[in-house]
């Protein structure tokens, strides 16, 4: 499990800003894929869909610090997949809620990760430029691979550390795991309290989409889309 988390963390971090940017890093791609690999596709689907919309306005533009929402979604998926022994088990919504908070906090900490990595990359960049100007080709090539590897390791270590911290906090303090289940009565209560987690996350995502696209001049387009979708939905 830890190996997969590290691999996904490395690929997601590279794909977010450092290289490729094929968008494999997006929660809707990475979370279901991780879920499939660890045998919990429904958890990947849950976090892929709910977390995707949350980071639509967090743009990796220039020197701006942005929340690492993609890594946050991975940590949330990995935590939930580890802690929940079976689909639909007792206290599963509490675990999903905990994983959601962990994902949000991971994204928040990620703002500092990228800034730190970029400060450190300056040393690689200076050495790379010097190596090329002094015609030390092998040195330059090694430095390029080292910088690529440095980015990947930063992503992998970051998700691994936060994954284990949140995992042990969950197990140690809250006492919720496959080994230490809640009593049936408490589990039912927590599930009832957190039954609105998915609607709330979807609503928050919809609010972020609205903030980006809905304006006075586009309102009729929104109403048009809503009416058409409603008619199609009711007909089906």
């Amino acid at each position: 499990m830890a190996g997969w988390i590290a691999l996904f963390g490395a690929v997601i971090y590279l794909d977010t800003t450092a290289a490729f940017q094929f968008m494999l890093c997006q929660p809707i791609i990475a979370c279901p894929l991780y879920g499939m690999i660890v045998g919990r596709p429904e958890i990947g689907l849950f976090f892929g869909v709910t977390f995707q919309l949350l980071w639509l306005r967090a743009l990796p533009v220039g020197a701006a610090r942005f929340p690492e929402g993609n890594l946050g979604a991975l940590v949330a998926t990995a935590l939930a997949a580890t802690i929940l022994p079976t689909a639909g088990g007792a206290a599963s919504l509490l675990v999903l809620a905990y994983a959601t908070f962990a994902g949000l906090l991971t994204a928040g900490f990620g703002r500092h990760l990228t800034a730190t990595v970029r400060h450190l990359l300056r040393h690689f960049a200076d050495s790379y430029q010097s190596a090329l100007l002094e015609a030390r080709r092998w040195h330059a090539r090694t430095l390029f691979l080292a910088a690529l590897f440095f980015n990947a390791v930063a992503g992998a270590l970051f998700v691994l550390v936060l994954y284990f911290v949140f995992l042990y906090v969950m197990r140690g303090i809250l006492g919720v795991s496959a080994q230490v289940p809640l009593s049936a009565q408490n589990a039912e209560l927590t599930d009832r309290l957190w039954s609105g987690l998915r609607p709330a996350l979807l609503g928050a995502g919809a609010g972020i989409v609205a903030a980006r696209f809905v304006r006075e001049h586009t309102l009729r387009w929104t109403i048009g889309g809503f009416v058409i979708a409603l008619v199609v939905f009711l007909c089906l």
Partner: protein
Amino acid sequence: MDNRGLCDCVGRVSMPLTHLHLGDRLHLAWRSLFVQVFWNYRAMQGEGFLFALLPFVRRIESNAEKQRRLLHLSAGFMNAHPCLTPLALGAMLRRMAGEQELDEHEWQTWREGLCGPLGTVGDTLIWDGLKPLVFVLATIVLLLFGSPQNILLFSFAALLLYNIPVWGLRLWGLKEGWSRGREVLRAFEKPFFRQAKSWSDRIGAVLFGLLLVASFAESTLFTPLAIGQFVFGCLLLWACMAARWPLISSLVVAVGFVPFSAWLAQLVHLGGW
């Protein structure tokens, strides 16, 4: 690093390129995927541009000293949207490979002048246009039809839907950059770039309408409590985004409200419990 005094002007290269073959374009497009590997707060993508242009500089100039000067010109401050870096790379290569003489001061001014337009156009077109559109659409499709059995198929389709236009833009950028050289920014005079924002806004607005219906089509949204939680989350985040409040704090409040609202619903005997 300080390179002052290294060069003022670079004369015509010894092996000028007159044509950029498909293989060259693909090679440059591939290397442009790595322009952000060295991203740092001093030169931003500067060393990434150096990496991308390196094999071409070696090809057009065999003299070691002139090659060094061209490499020095390739580095330095640079920042652009990653999908539009091929546009800048094509233009830089054209100027290096074809011009009689490159004045270092003029080159740096021209190069830094590219940063603003390439960043703004790319951010508007891709980060704030294509990317949200594709992934909101993918979310809608997964909300309506997603299941553990077909999710990889839909994810792969979303990747294609994003990457096909992006690669089209990259290859178009290389062609335009190479053909326009110094006047590369004139490529943005095409009507497409003026209209793209308003069209992405309209399509996004339609998608928001679809998203609302798709969310309510979810079986989890059939109780009054769930509808209330959805609406609260939506309005809260909308207001927070409009007021430019920190995203993470707003999300934590939205999620934290869930058990509180369930408790309130129990007090007033609302459905959903």
